[in-house]
């Protein structure tokens, strides 16, 4: 339970992520939205969102992200952006670009939108359209030019996985040609849909080494024209990440149905109840709710974390990853070599290398390989069917 003393030590959130909707025109195989997203259809109203924005800003949040799903599917986006900007947030639109017409871009500019982060799925039409199951490649190029024309700083985000990792040099070149200031090469994190498709998406160790070398070559070539972030692939690096910069430390996500979470995916964790902004104010949610206090700090840790010299540095890694891989959200993140479950990660990484060596990838790069199901695209039908299966097998250990 939070006490008055903890209140004084605890900082307010700096980041408010408004996931306006789970609806999305894309069907990305690595989407981080919950696998059961189609079961959460009750979206917050405009008035609810406006209240959330005001409460967050009053607490001291400075960054506001509008995300989804595809946030452009909400026709009140301009109104929410205008309010957020007027309140003093730095406003970030995190979008696939689908629906960002000239008219909406102009309206968002008038609303005071500060920045657009555009996701690309590949440098080639073939892979972009394949992994999203759409024909959006040309459109994204057009949207990138519109972002530049409106004077927004452009951040391009590309999720990296086995199907596009060999194109990394061309991806970097494309982003530079489009005028991006920052490029985030986000090695896939295996949650939600990416977890379902992990065997298809996990690159080999050798591919990752080559990708990082290629990235370094481009960094040298481009200088400070474009900054490139290479998100650490934590299965391979065997280094637990300080997830969300600490549980309930700076980051507050509100899902489309109003559930407040300390990270995008925390709702998968068993045994925790997260409050809803329809029932509770943001301040009480942040400081007093069980969901936000449960994994704050280091008090919840077991061994080997509890006596680890790095426990403040990584805070035991990611709770969702611990749960997905071991079935227990309270254990050390299995990507850590000190974790008693680390062998699970080693087996998964070794299997990716073995599959590549056996030529399975060359024969069927994205179809059914040996013991690998075909890619499952994110969609409402797939969501309902997967979450029904999940409910039936809940008592069993996931990830085994």
């Amino acid at each position, binding site marked *: 339970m939070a006490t008055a003393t903890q209140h004084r030590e605890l900082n307010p959130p700096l980041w408010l992520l408004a996931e306006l909707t789970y609806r999305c025109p894309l069907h990305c195989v690595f989407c981080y939205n919950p696998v059961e997203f189609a079961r959460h259809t009750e979206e917050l109203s405009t008035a609810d969102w406006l209240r959330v924005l005001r409460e967050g800003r009053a607490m*001291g949040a400075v960054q506001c992200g509008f995300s989804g799903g595809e946030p452009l599917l909400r026709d009140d986006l301009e109104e929410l952006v205008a309010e957020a900007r007027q309140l003093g947030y730095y406003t970030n639109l995190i979008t696939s670009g689908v629906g960002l017409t000239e008219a909406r871009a102009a309206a968002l500019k008038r609303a005071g939108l500060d*920045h657009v982060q555009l996701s690309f799925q590949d440098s080639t039409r073939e892979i972009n359209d394949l992994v999203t199951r759409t024909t959006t490649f040309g459109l994204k190029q057009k949207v990138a030019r519109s972002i530049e024309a409106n004077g927004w700083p452009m951040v391009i985000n590309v999720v990296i996985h086995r199907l596009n990792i060999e194109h990394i040099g061309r991806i970097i070149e494309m982003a530079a040609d489009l005028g991006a200031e920052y490029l985030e090469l986000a090695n896939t994190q295996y949650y939600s849909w990416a977890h379902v498709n992990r065997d298809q998406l996990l690159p080999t160790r050798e591919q990752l080494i080559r990708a990082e070398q290629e990235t370094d070559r481009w960094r040298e070539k481009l200088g400070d024209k474009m900054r490139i972030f290479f998100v650490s692939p934590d299965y391979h690096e065997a280094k637990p990440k300080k997830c969300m910069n600490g549980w309930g430390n700076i980051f507050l996500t509100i899902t489309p149905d109003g559930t407040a979470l300390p990270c995008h995916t925390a709702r998968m964790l068993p045994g925790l109840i997260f409050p809803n902004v329809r029932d509770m104010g943001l301040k009480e949610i942040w400081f007093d709710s069980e969901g936000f206090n449960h994994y704050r700090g280091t008090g919840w840790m077991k061994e080997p974390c509890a006596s680890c010299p790095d426990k403040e540095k990584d805070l035991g890694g990611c709770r969702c990853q611990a749960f997905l891989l071991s079935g227990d959200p309270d254990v050390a993140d299995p990507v850590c070599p000190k974790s008693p479950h680390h062998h699970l990660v080693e087996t998964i990484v070794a299997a990716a290398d073995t599959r590549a060596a056996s030529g399975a990838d060359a024969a069927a790069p994205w179809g059914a390989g040996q013991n690998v199901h075909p890619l499952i695209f994110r969609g409402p039908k797939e969501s309902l069917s997967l979450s029904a299966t999940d409910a039936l097998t809940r008592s069993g250990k996931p990830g085994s």
Partner: protein
Amino acid sequence: MTSAAELQPDSRPRVGTGFRLQWEPAQDCHVLLYPEGMVKLNQSAGEILSRCSGELTVAALVADLEASFHTAGLMDDVQAFLRMARQQKWVAWE
């Protein structure tokens, strides 16, 4: 991208594109906001940047600072800060 002109006393620095400077009561300091991030500024950085309007020249900016804080000889420190700030893209000038 504009070419990186040398800083002169008559340069008119402004806050860089995509950055926003504001006072944050919750942090009790000026902050510089940019895509998905924030820099907390110490007092002198906050005072310099809040004068980078694109209208004041460096000479006028320094004179204003010296008058506000009843001091003199700030030119070198201000110029050194502005050069560093431009490397971070916090400020720009033509």
